[in-house]
């Protein structure tokens, strides 16, 4: 028994940690989808840009400036992407907006490649959360413990925001019925901007936690975690924040169990297999609402 635990505890810890990081990204996907019915393919790249921001700013500034500046920059980027690439297509078919999102992702990846020269960069060590600790028999970084706690705190705050504030009420109304809420006098563009700002903020925090663990930053480093976070959002029922968080933890842990079983090559494939299985048997995910098509 002790042997079993000591052999598998590192994987479980890694699973919980990476699950929390996926959760922070997944919230961005699920909120945008809830309101715009758009898969924001660029979200994974915004996550990567946040990492690069940190790398470059930390080279010239102390941590207590570069950390908040990274968050501010990421939020500004998220807002800019929404304003430039999605807002002009508000009334276009959904396929056009999705293609625009793919275009933004392509642009951001190429831009990062250009700026960095395509070489992997070393993510700076953030004191305290990068320090190693040992729990029981497993040695791990502090970030492994911090992530789930921070994720839960942020999610609780977010849920409070959505349930009890005016802007939260507006967000709920818009995701329920876009057109009607517009008629009711809700300023759609403001609500959408706030959604993107929150999503980008969480992606920035997620990127700090994620890259404290996996320290090599490349232009496509965010693509896979981005896709997985999206799968988590679908798994939990897209549009639902608790669903996204639970989905992310399940995927993070399951992925690391697969790795523990020695099937590392299939850990990515497993995530997508899980997605396809859930889409077949429960297309709306764990907590999603069924959508009825109107003629």
């Amino acid at each position: 028994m002790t042997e079993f635990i000591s052999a598998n505890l590192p994987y479980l810890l890694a699973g919980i940690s990476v699950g929390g990081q996926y959760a922070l990204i997944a919230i961005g996907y699920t909120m945008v989808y809830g309101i715009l019915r758009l898969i924001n393919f660029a979200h994974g790249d915004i996550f990567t840009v946040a990492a690069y921001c940190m790398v470059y700013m930390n080279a010239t500034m102390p941590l207590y400036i570069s950390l908040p500046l990274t968050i501010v920059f990421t939020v500004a980027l998220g807002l800019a992407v929404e304003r430039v690439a999605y807002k002009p297509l508000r009334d276009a078919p959904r396929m056009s907006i999705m293609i625009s999102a793919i275009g933004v992702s392509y642009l951001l990846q190429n831009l990062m490649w250009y700026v960095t020269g395509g070489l992997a960069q070393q993510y700076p060590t953030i004191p305290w959360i990068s320090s190693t600790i040992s729990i029981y028999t497993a040695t791990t970084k502090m970030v492994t413990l911090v992530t789930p706690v921070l994720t839960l705190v942020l999610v609780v705050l977010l849920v409070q925001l959505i349930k009890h504030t005016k802007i939260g009420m507006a967000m709920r109304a818009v995701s329920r019925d876009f057109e009607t809420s517009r008629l009711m006098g809700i300023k759609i563009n403001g609500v959408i901007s706030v959604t993107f700002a929150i999503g980008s903020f969480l992606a920035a925090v997620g990127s700090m936690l994620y890259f404290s663990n996996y320290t090599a930053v490349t232009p496509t480093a965010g693509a896979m975690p981005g896709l997985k976070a999206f799968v988590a959002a679908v798994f939990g029922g897209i549009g639902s924040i608790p669903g996204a968080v639970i989905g992310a933890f399940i995927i993070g842990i399951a992925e690391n169990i697969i790795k523990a079983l020695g099937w590392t090559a299939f850990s990515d494939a497993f995530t997508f297999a899980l997605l396809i299985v859930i889409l077949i048997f429960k297309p709306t995910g764990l907590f999603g609402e069924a959508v009825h098509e109107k003629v």
Partner: protein
Amino acid sequence: MKVFKIILAALLVILALVITASALTTRGTLPTLLERMDPENLAAQDAAMQKAKDRVTTALAENNPERAQRSLDRYINGFSAQLTLSGRVGYDLFFFRNGPSMLALALFLVVAAAGLIAHALDRSGRVRKLVLPAILITVLYVGVYIVENIAGANSMLMTVLKKGAIYALLAVSMNLLNGFTGLFSLGQAGFMLIGAYTYAIFSIETQSRAQVYQYYAGGIIQFQLPALVSIALAGLAAALFAFLIGWPVLRLKSDYLAIATLGFAEIIRAIFQYDGLGPLTNGSNLLRKFTVFDTALFPFAVAGVCIALIALLIHSTYGRSFKAIRDDEVAAEAMGINLYAHKQMAFVISSFFAGVGGALLAMYQTTVQAAAFTSAMTYEILLIVVIGGMGSISGSVIASFLFVAASEWWLRFLDNETMLGSFRVPLLRSGFRMVVFSVVIMAVVLFYRKGIMGDRELSLGRFRRRLSHRRKGGAQDG
């Protein structure tokens, strides 16, 4: 008019025969001609002419015009014989060097002549409609062949043409699904991967297998199939896979379908890199030493046939059903169209051609590795489809060539650091090309949403009507 056309056609045929004869005989006649151009021979001729010239001078001095005339004639004869000889040699050398291109040109002339005769004799007008497209297609292929012979198979232009033809097939196959049937699928890279691997596995040279599969004891397949058979198998393998995953996936709605197909592509990529399948797929190592094409005509021919088949499909009743599903699924179902069967059909056929395109891409690259078939590849082809216009075959084809030419050739200079005198042009360095390129693509996506062609096709009929309309309009103004 009719007689005139037939005479013109006859002239074209004669010209074609002359060209063919010249191209075929030069190899035989050149040696004799060159023998006549031997330095000794030429020296003797030169001496004779020098003598004739001297005679002219003496005759003039002796005031004997008749003899001067005779010697001058001899001199001029010798001179023109030399000119003729060098002309013949030049002509024959030209045909010797460009023989294949000249044969292609002759073929084109025959086609043109046949078109002219058909045009003159055909009363119903049915053949008449096919003449111009047939001629244009011949011009395209003959042109590619001649350009390849002149520019050299490894020139940048040929690279663009080869890759452009392959991307055209990939884009048209994706357009069949996304533009004509309205299924937003992002699995293209996965099907291409299946196609590329199937092709490579079956067409690696038998004697090289031990070397390619060095970590897997030479692999389990120990035979080699002809290229065309392997290509067909590549398409069938992709189609079979599409058939299997279509059952669960095609019941999903738009964005769920997109993400599920994207997921399948990732799963395929993982499976093909799996070590346990190494004897078949060589694990995560590359596959190489399979049959490749040596002329651009090959991808042009295969892609051309495939695109023509897709075009025929789209213009059939099935194609109309696809468009009905795209425009309104509920209405299409109410009209009696079996949604699932038609979606499945579009999905399987599109995947078949994606597999064929993947096989061609493998031939073009000469090596394949599963790791390269990422979702970025799918996005690239999707962007080509969007630039060309969702629901336009000719748009996809044009956009493919533009996309490949711009990314591989025209924008290359953006990647090089450039100095104007002592002034270093800012921004220009490696990677800038792709940034500019993606900005252009974003501009198309945002401001020019219909792409180059919208959902229309390139049509000679419309072009002609527009021309005649403009002419009429001009007459009214006058």
